[in-house]
């Protein structure tokens, strides 16, 4: 079908909604019908006729309803994309199609209308030379000290001590539970490390072990909690015999050249520099996020526009999926608990609208500035993700392409570029 054959008129229902009235000319309708009957003829079996030898009039009499339905579908499928490209409309969702011709007839034209939602046509300016609340990034000596302290704690080791155990110590212990004189099944452990004060074992263990020294034997009556996973034991009491094998003290590594070397630095100065740099990076990322939000706030405020429902619903769907997945894994967002889907939708709708607006604004600027993300750039980004996750580039790329996530990555990079030019052209308020 050539697009010039179509008669198309566009009516604006709202800034984000358009109605396309499309009329397919009679010749095109006839052509479609003929080809539909022809393909039907080669496949249909009617008693009294050989396959493929059924006369047209008999086919038309018997299969018109079926064929017409198919042809209508096909006409719309063909005409709709042509109409979109001719009128340069980019819908954000599937159209709502309404057929206006009551019955398809050979020799008559076929008319239908399609209501589509489009991205709002925005003209955004004022994004160059924005005044932003830029803050200098500074890392204080105290920040560095805290950073190094944290690093020491991560690298902390344990060493044996000959003194009674106290909270914070690691106690290595053998134990077994008895009821009467019978050992209780599955309660025997050898060389079990217990970090005192963390209450990782049944209540009562920590208390019994506190003050014990290396080589000491202990006994304690410990009751299983009522909700213990082993039903036969829940709520009962058992006598536990324990032997302390070792008491170890948690020791922070000294701030020495060796310690610096163990984290990959030449000397203590190098370590300080490294920590400082890492902290600065973190702060910078935080600050950039804040600035991005500020930019978006300002732009959205300066350019009020309607958002298409279809887009909002799509974003809302994504948000809800994430929230519900989170619930399944047990990480509740306080306040979401016990809400129905409808209530959640209401709650997160504003967030979805905001996200749509952000994306529309950023896309519009990207289009205006002709920002493109090349294949090489996306590949580079994927490669770095692959590296950080420790998977091969090929397998990650394959998965991304299969899930259609490449576009999302591309969009994200495009948006980054938009922020870069805005930030580059901005000045401090």
């Amino acid at each position, binding site marked *: 079908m050539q697009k010039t054959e179509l008669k198309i008129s566009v009516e604006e229902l709202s800034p984000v909604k358009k109605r396309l009235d499309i009329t397919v000319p009679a010749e095109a309708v006839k052509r479609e019908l003929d080809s539909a009957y022809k393909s039907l003829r080669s496949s249909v079996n009617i008693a*009294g006729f050989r396959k493929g030898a059924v006369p047209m009039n008999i086919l038309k009499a018997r299969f018109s309803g079926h064929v017409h339905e198919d042809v209508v579908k096909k006409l719309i499928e063909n005409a709709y994309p042509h109409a979109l490209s001719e009128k340069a409309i980019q819908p954000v969702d599937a159209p709502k199609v309404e057929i206006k011709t009551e019955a398809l007839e050979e020799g008559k034209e076929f008319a239908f209308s399609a209501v589509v939602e489009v991205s709002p046509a925005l003209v955004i300016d004022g994004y160059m030379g924005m005044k932003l609340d830029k803050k200098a990034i500074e890392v204080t000596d105290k920040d560095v000290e805290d950073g190094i302290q944290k690093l020491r704690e991560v690298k902390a080791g344990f060493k044996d001590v000959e003194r009674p155990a106290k909270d914070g110590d690691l106690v290595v212990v053998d134990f077994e539970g008895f009821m009467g004189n019978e050992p209780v099944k599955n309660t025997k452990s050898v060389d079990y490390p217990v970090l005192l004060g963390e209450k990782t074992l049944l209540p009562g263990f920590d208390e019994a072990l506190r003050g014990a020294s290396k080589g000491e034997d202990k006994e304690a009556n410990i009751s299983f909690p009522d909700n213990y996973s082993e039903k036969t034991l829940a709520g009962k009491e058992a006598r536990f015999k324990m032997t302390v094998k070792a008491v170890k003290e948690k020791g922070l590594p000294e701030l020495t050249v060796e310690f610096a070397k163990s984290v990959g630095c030449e000397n203590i100065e190098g370590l300080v520099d490294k920590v400082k740099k890492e902290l600065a990076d973190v702060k910078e990322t935080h600050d950039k996020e804040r600035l991005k939000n500020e930019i978006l706030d300002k732009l959205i405020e300066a350019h009020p526009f309607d958002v298409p429902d279809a887009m909002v619903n799509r974003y809302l769907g994504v948000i809800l999926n994430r929230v519900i997945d989170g619930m399944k894994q047990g990480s509740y967002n306080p306040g979401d608990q016990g809400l129905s889907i409808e209530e959640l939708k209401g709650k997160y709708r504003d967030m979805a609208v905001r996200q749509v607006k952000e994306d529309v604004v950023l896309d519009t600027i990207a289009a205006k500035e002709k920002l493109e993300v090349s294949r090489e750039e996306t590949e580079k980004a994927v490669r770095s993700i692959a590296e950080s996750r420790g998977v091969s580039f090929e397998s990650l790329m394959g998965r991304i392409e299969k899930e259609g996530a490449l576009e999302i990555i591309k969009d994200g990079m495009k948006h980054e570029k938009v922020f870069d030019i805005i930030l580059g052209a901005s000045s401090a308020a």
Partner: protein
Amino acid sequence: MKNSYSIIKSPVITEKSTAKTAEGKVVFWVDVDANKNDIKSAVEKIFNVKVLDVNTNRVPGKMKRMGKHAGQKPTRKKAYISLREGDKIEIFEGV
């Protein structure tokens, strides 16, 4: 004579019969006991057309077998009817 509507049973719709339409002929299954005169008057009465000629032939019923049970399909009679030029019978136009 029998009722016209029991003489003419149904149209024959096959490749051969549709090909005959082009020659101005139509084909019907008719009562085996009907003669050409009966058929002519019945067609003229029912379809309001002028019949020029009637050719008939009997189609003998076949033996049909379902395991050990043998059966006989009924013998039928087919009538080729030549219509006056311009006359038409609607049921052959699109069935």
